[in-house]
């Protein structure tokens, strides 16, 4: 293994770790969406549609970051 190959391997490892981390975060964002849906069954309230929209925006944003990381890193 050459000296130049080492940083490349290190960055590749970092990329894999970053992707795993962001993927876990996407799952967390999905859980928030699910939680909000559960909550809307338990309690009907005026603010619930806005909250649902925010959870979806968050989930989509997390998904976009994952795709960007997959393409750019």
């Amino acid at each position, binding site marked *: 293994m050459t000296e130049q190959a080492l940083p490349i391997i290190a960055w590749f490892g970092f990329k894999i770790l970053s992707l795993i981390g962001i993927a876990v975060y996407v799952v967390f964002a999905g859980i928030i969406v699910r939680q909000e849906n559960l909550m809307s069954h*338990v309690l009907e309230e005026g603010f619930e549609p806005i909250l649902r929209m925010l959870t979806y925006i968050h989930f989509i944003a997390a998904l976009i*970051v994952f795709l*960007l990381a997959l393409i750019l890193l």
Partner: protein
Amino acid sequence: VPTLFDVAATSSGNSKKTRPMKNTKKRMGPFTSFAENPDGVRFETQEAKETIVLFLRQHIVVNVPWVCVSVLMLFVPTFLLPLFLHAVRVSLPIPATYIFVGTLFWYVATFGFILANFLGWFINIYIVTNERIVDIDFYYLLNKDFSQAELNKVQDISFITKGLLSTIFNYGEVVVQTASESPNLEFDKVPNPEKVVETIRSLIEKHKRGRPL
């Protein structure tokens, strides 16, 4: 017997009319933590004749710590991180793509942090109806706990106000002891605890006398 129906004066019109609180429906907002006779709210197992008398969440001031952390998090990529790197004299050759994706992820995570904390506050609710007391809790975004106590099963009710903040902002813990085998209900950090206790006591009295509310 404490008064259940407060006299509320209306500002509309020339003559100030008074009307019982029973008919005063209050519109709920996203930050409502104390509402008497709230309008437009229903919960999962609510029966047709059951009406919500009190709707409670933890006092809004309990959100201050995570709001402060969120504000700090917003400044991390643009201000705090460069300051830190400059202070420790670290000059890492980080590719621009990593900085871009990292910054983007940080802001999404900050948004997620705010959302999760807000949901944690928003979906933990306490409801007092004309028939029972309900405590709905969601723990760690995955676990749901639905506890309830019929008004005729309530043995004792008390409240505790401790600490500087709770005294200043008038919030405390309301403990409802039940006669049944189910555990006691605890309303944690709810606003106006004395009013909550007073209202529940009044409802129990009326329930004992068999008068529908």
